[in-house]
């Protein structure tokens, strides 16, 4: 594979990341705007109670505060609905075909870098899953994996049936600098010191997984610095 093809894949990944950042920024901005006006009224009404704590003022302003809380809750629900599961899902494809496509796309890039990419269907290849979002997740995670893995090392992508209705994709990396609780930082980690690009990819993939009712989890290796990313979703 010519180097220009590897460069093209890298640039596509950069563009995808830029798009994710722009979408996140826009969403945060809209959420701020939607919450700003009701919060403004709540803060102001609280100040009016403090200025005149008579029973009538308290009663009237509390009523107005409750209205704004309900208004904000409605807006948040609408926002959640918008970013939720109301979007029609794309066609379903066989896990084997999805894995083969991922391998065809990333093996040449991995090879150029001296990284071995192993793909193992593990008997799940005939199961059908939602294709569009699942492929986005897998290609994003593979981009991250190839980027983070040093020459001479290997990464493994596998898929196996889990229970009667689920497929679990496992992507094992020799090195992954991300906390297992990446979704919700808790003390003492708070996410400080981790690679922002890695975190951003994990958050995006988690959000995408949720859109199709799936999950994304990180299991750190018992020893060493490796980890396995688990993407689970339903099959037909």
């Amino acid at each position, binding site marked *: 594979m010519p180097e220009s093809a590897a460069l093209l894949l890298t640039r596509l990944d950069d563009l995808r990341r830029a798009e994710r950042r722009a979408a996140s920024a826009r969403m945060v901005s809209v959420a701020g705007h939607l919450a*700003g006006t009701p919060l403004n009224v709540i803060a102001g009404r609280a100040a009016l109670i403090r200025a005149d704590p008579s029973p009538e003022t308290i009663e009237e302003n509390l009523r107005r505060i409750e209205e704004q809380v309900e208004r904000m809750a409605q807006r948040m629900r609408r926002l959640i609905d918008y970013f939720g599961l109301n979007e029609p899902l794309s066609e379903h494809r066989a896990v084997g075909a999805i894995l083969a496509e991922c391998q065809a796309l990333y093996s040449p890039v991995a090879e150029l870098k001296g990284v071995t990419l192993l793909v193992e269907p593990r008997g799940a290849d005939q199961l059908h899953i939602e294709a569009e979002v699942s492929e986005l997740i897998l290609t994003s995670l593979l981009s991250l994996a190839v980027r983070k893995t040093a020459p001479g090392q290997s990464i493994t992508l596998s898929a196996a049936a889990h229970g009667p209705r689920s497929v679990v994709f496992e992507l094992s990396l020799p090195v992954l600098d991300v906390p297992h609780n990446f979704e919700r930082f808790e003390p003492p980690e708070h996410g400080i010191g981790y690679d922002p690009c890695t975190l951003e990819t994990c958050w995006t993939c988690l959000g995408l997984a949720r859109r199709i009712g799936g999950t994304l989890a990180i299991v750190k290796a018992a020893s060493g610095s490796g980890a396995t990313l688990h993407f689970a979703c339903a099959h037909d």
Partner: protein
Amino acid sequence: MLIVEDDDDSREMLGELVASYGHLAVPAANADEALAHVRLQKPDLAFIDLGLPQLGGCELARLLRLAMADTPGLKTRLVALTGYSDREMRESAGAAGFDAYVVKPIMPEALEALLRA
């Protein structure tokens, strides 16, 4: 003090809060009402929501600057009120002639400081 805000609850609350600090609050729900009030009342300060319907807050600020240039004694400080904190929006507000830019929710202490300034 002129309060230009299309959201009824927010406009009403700001009016009451401004009044509780001892100022006369003049409410306006859109740019047309605001322009009429400015010419008549000559307010010291105008809080303007950037997301006004039809004529937006930035357009209103430009018109108010033109009115101030043409009207002796009309000198109103313009404060932009918005839920957006983007740099782009701040720059647009500055270019439109706003003196200050406040991201909602505006805390009462900040409002009081603006009224005192």
